[in-house]
């Protein structure tokens, strides 16, 4: 792994360089909140340690994405639509890089999802260090640091950044846009120091090892916690929207006013919504809100982990910040951990 010095004032020329070759998305400020948005000049960038409300999954898996165009009539036609452009995601936190790595696996499992994978292939990821807020718990799910899945990663060490080079492509881009020096050993040490300091900063913690969570969750099926939180949950699906690893979608058609042409598109869907598992005949396989909550939580900690090998909760805390009734995924998990401990003793 190679590390290079990049003075903080080097960020502007670096981003200017990126803008020549890529559409750049990065941290901006809107209505006083940090979020990811398009960057047209280095001035747009608001580097902030704070977590964003929405994850960067929208740039790889848009909220609404056309997948086909069709024409009815005498000569019916159907053509696939795969939109992908060179894009750079700048200032991505480690939890979100972990989330993207999970999405990479999801969308290449079974029949490859070309719409996602083509976008992914044209995407450069530049990560950055962050500082946890009171809802972050990445340290409890092993996503506080990341060692792959990025092209470049910026570590803040005071007046400079130390750029960790993740890929050859990242190295080339860095060389192309700015002059950097090889980082000194003492500076690299600072990265570890920062990590150690960060690890002490978490307010929200899970009370079990991350690797034990799938097993713990497998015993949660009849837990009273689902009924309890279902009494306050609105079933609004906000947690699905903000989650960086929620990828379920609906497929719909839209016809143009000429009634002859149209598009088939996919839109984000959410397993918390009432009709999510309802079939045309009327049977709903997850009728109650408690069942849907259980499905969503288990999907993060057990089901997808069984399938893909990693927890699908990356500890970003977004669902906690967003929930209108303060359902807290970490508290719920700790309750389940406590029940499991009780069962054992």
């Amino acid at each position: 792994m190679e590390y290079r010095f990049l003075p903080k004032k080097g960020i502007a020329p670096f981003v200017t360089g990126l803008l020549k070759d890529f559409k750049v998305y990065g941290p901006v400020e809107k209505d006083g909140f940090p979020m990811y948005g398009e960057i047209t000049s280095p001035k747009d960038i608001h580097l902030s340690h704070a977590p964003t409300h929405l994850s960067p999954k929208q740039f790889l898996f848009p909220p609404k994405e056309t997948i086909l165009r069709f024409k009815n009539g005498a000569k019916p036609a159907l053509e696939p639509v795969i939109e992908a452009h060179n894009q750079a995601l700048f200032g991505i936190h480690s939890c979100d890089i972990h989330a993207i790595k999970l999405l990479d696996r999801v969308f290449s499992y079974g029949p490859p999802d070309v719409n996602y994978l083509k976008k992914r292939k044209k995407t450069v990821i530049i990560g950055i260090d962050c500082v946890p807020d009171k809802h972050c718990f990445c340290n409890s799910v092993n996503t506080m640091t990341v060692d792959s899945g990025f092209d470049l990663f910026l570590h803040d060490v005071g007046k400079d950044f130390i750029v960790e080079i993740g890929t050859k492509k990242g190295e080339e881009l860095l060389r192309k846009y700015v002059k950097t020096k090889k980082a000194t050993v003492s500076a690299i040490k600072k990265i570890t120091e920062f990590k150690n300091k960060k690890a002490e900063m978490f307010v929200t913690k899970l009370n079990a090892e991350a690797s034990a969570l799938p097993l713990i969750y497998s015993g949660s099926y009849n837990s009273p916690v689902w009924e309890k939180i279902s009494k306050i949950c609105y079933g609004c699906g906000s947690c699905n929207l903000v989650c960086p690893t929620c990828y379920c979608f609906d497929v719909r058609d839209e016809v143009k006013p000429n009634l002859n042409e149209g598009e088939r598109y996919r839109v984000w869907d959410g397993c918390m919504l009432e009709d999510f598992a309802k079939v045309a005949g009327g049977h709903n396989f997850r009728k109650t809100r408690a069942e849907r909550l259980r499905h969503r939580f288990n999907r993060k900690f057990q089901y997808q982990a069984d399938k893909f090998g990693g927890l699908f909760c990356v500890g970003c805390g977004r669902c906690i910040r967003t929930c209108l009734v303060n359902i807290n995924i970490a508290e719920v998990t700790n309750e389940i951990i406590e029940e499991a401990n009780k069962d054992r003793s």
Partner: protein
Amino acid sequence: MKSLKKQIKTEVKKMRRNSTSQPLNLLTSEVPASQPRNLSTSVFDISSPYISRLAKIERVARLTEKERLYKIAIDDRKTLGHSPGQFIMLSIPGYGEAPISVSSPPDKRNTFEICVRAVGNLTNALHNLTKGDKLWIRGPYGKSFDVEELKGKDLLFIAGGIGLVPMRSLIKTVLSERPFYGKIHLLYGVKSPEEILFKDELTEWGHHGMGIQITIDKPHPEWKGHTGVVTTLLPPLKIDETKTVAIVVGPPVMYKYVIMSLGDKRIGGHDIFLSLERRMKCGLGKCGHCQINSIYVCQEGPVFRLSEIRYLREAI
């Protein structure tokens, strides 16, 4: 021995080459060309899995008030290439796309049959189409029944309502090679006599050495046969549990009771196959609607051996 292995190797290579060098479909030829070359590091050209094949309705038959049987011919003149139990994604652009079971046995020609109940947006639109109208299909998808494994066995088919539709593909496959199987029984439960599907074919299947018993849920003035839910047909049935395999397809509520009744007949999870219905939007193991715990029904199902999902919560 060696030469055969070599031959297979070269054949596989050839198949791989063919499958990657050709665009998947008629309308996609311009797509690979427009893909920028310099950015893709992948050797394979992957095309959109949502591309469908154009097809035409060749025949429509009204089976009941709500169900119609469609014979569909694929425009590219190639076979659908399905096995019994698989499904397709059928679409009428503008109305959407939905998973539909294939109801006919495998066919070398380009035709296949589906039986559709008008219950949703797409299926209602389909009921308005007639002979000659076009629609789009992709697939087949999903795991099918393992016909080879059923050979030599007594088969006990248990269908509820439109569960007979996907089952028909397997029944017709089995009856076309009748001598390979032992006793064959069909227990078929419907709500009322008007809802009995494939009436003429049922008689024909009877002539091919299939014991058929039909039951309706509640007494009906015109019905002289058996009344009661489908499980009431099981106790009097003589079954050799050492060689019977049960195939069960029906509405979600049916499975639990049928499985219990089969247990009474000493038929266990290893010898019970079922097909599970779920909502599906992609058929590709992505959209999440068909998920049961960690299983995607569109990929690992819809046909399951009961013992595979016996302890999968929410499956049955």
